[in-house]
């Protein structure tokens, strides 16, 4: 039986609970979980102040409620699963190394920031800085898969090095900013400055994009790696047209060797 938390008292200020990760909960009894300290602003309170707790010693965690103020869930998790029914706040799955997170609702900023591996799926919309590098860090996500069914905010995949981000809805500005590797699939396009200052990596857009002036059109092609990517995404019910795609290279300002593919 999974550990199930149901919100009973909504937090007034952000609630930080980085221990809400399967690695930690797998070894804890019901009483221990209930007594774990969360930070409600500066106040340190037991988890049971905010949640009804069910279950114990499980690698599966289920959360229920409007949890947009709940931060750092699944921080650095290595295994197991987290399922959220409702909304969830910032830093979900940040530094994650493995396992799976599913959110049936909307999520905040910094989802999967600097993650090393694992899978995150957000069924609703997400905020900005998905899979990004925290301020000042050289690299964002290093591997893994993030899928946002809805829209996403600014700086999606900023400085990512490897791994894949799929966004079903539109993203805002600076998608793939300073990207160093990996793949971003944009099913509904993006606002402006997509791929700005890219060094390497690939952005695929199924909708037309407003290109940065420092990208150069190269050719129209059916890239060889797309079947591979399709196979990678197929188990998640995500399909990908085989093309052809218009290939742009940039960002020449760096000068970088990134690629943006726009479905022709």
């Amino acid at each position, binding site marked *: 039986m999974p550990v199930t938390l149901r919100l009973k008292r909504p937090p*007034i200020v952000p609630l930080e609970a*980085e221990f809400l990760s399967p690695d930690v909960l797998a070894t804890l009894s019901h009483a221990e979980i209930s007594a774990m300290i969360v930070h409600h602003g*500066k106040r340190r309170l037991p988890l049971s102040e905010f949640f009804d707790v069910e279950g114990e010693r499980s690698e599966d965690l289920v959360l229920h409620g409007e949890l947009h103020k709940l931060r750092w869930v699944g921080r650095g998790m290595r295994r197991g699963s987290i399922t959220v029914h409702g909304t969830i706040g910032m830093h979900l799955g940040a530094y994650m190394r493995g396992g799976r997170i599913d959110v049936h609702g909307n999520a905040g900023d910094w989802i999967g920031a600097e993650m090393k591996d694992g899978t995150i799926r957000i069924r609703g919309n997400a905020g900005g800085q998905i899979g990004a590098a925290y*301020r000042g860090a050289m690299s964002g996500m290093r591997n893994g898969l993030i899928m946002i069914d809805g829209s996403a905010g600014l700086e999606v995949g900023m400085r990512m090095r490897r791994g894949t981000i799929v966004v079903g809805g539109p993203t805002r500005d600076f998608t793939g900013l300073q990207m160093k590797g990996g793949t971003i699939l944009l099913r509904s396009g993006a606002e402006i*400055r997509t791929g700005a200052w890219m060094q390497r990596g690939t952005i695929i857009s199924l909708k037309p994009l407003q290109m940065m*002036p*420092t990208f150069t059109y190269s050719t129209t092609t059916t890239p060889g790696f797309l079947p591979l990517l399709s196979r990678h995404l197929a188990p998640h019910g995500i399909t990908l047209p085989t093309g052809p795609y218009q290939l742009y290279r940039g*960002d*020449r300002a760096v000068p970088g060797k990134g690629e943006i593919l726009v479905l022709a």
Partner: protein
Amino acid sequence: MGGKVTCTLGEVKQRADFIIYWGGNPAECHPRHFTKYTIMQKSKFLPRGRKDRTMVLVDIRETKSAKAADIFLQVRPGKDFELITILRALIKDQPVRDEDIAETGLDRAAVEDLVRRMKGAKFGCMFFGMGLSMTRGKHMNSAALLTLAAEMNAFTKFVAMPMRGHGNVTGADVIMRWQTGYPFGISFNRGYPRYNPGEFSTVDVLVRGDCDAAFIIGADPGATMPQPAIDHLARIPTIVLDPHITHTSRLARVHITTAPQGISAPGTAYRMDELPMPLSPALKSPYPTDEEVVRRINEAIAKKPFWLPDGGPSPHQWTSQVNL
């Protein structure tokens, strides 16, 4: 990856033969900038003063500052980031298409002329204002200009610095950095400083309703912030320290009148180039200084139970297990 390459204003005064103002209107907002620091000064290295210097203004509209400029480049609104990125490519002799340059509102001749002048300068300096740093793209617009300046050093000496607004914004930034390692957007709720602009920056905290009280010194967010932020300030207990009645003090639960800094209260202000300037009060004020009020509040708080569990004896307990 770029960085920040800057200098004090005296260096500009003595050496800068090429000055770009980007997204700022010094003629009206920093009226003494031209005469004190930049284009009008004569120096050992630039004995003819204005004649030895070239000034470029980049802005979305022709402000009063354009009259002072040798070259005015009118960039299309929202195209600053694109223009700077084009410049970054052009200085490295990377090709950019005519039509892409035209999108920024400038033509190839103007942009290439700018690049030629930048590379030909002995000491170039770029000042950027809120027209750059507060428009769409925000911190990335500033980062773009700072990166361009850093990269220009492959060809000649180049620096860049922000034109900060009024008040001692720079001072707050400098002190927060030495005490916490971070300039702004800091949270102490876990007992040690954490930084994340967008998460902890004041405007974002207020807009999301993430705080249950506000304490405001030397600022008037009620006049400048978006409506949801102002609404939240009115909802929660807000305390304002200010010599004057302000938009914020009107919606605050408590307004403590304090002595005006620099006029009646001593201290140090940091100039936009981060040089410290002593403030010597000219007038006496019947009101306490901000410092005095904060000190007394601190003393009162010290009498209350401490809000964090006291650190244990082991050095490892000085540290948090994880820094978030």
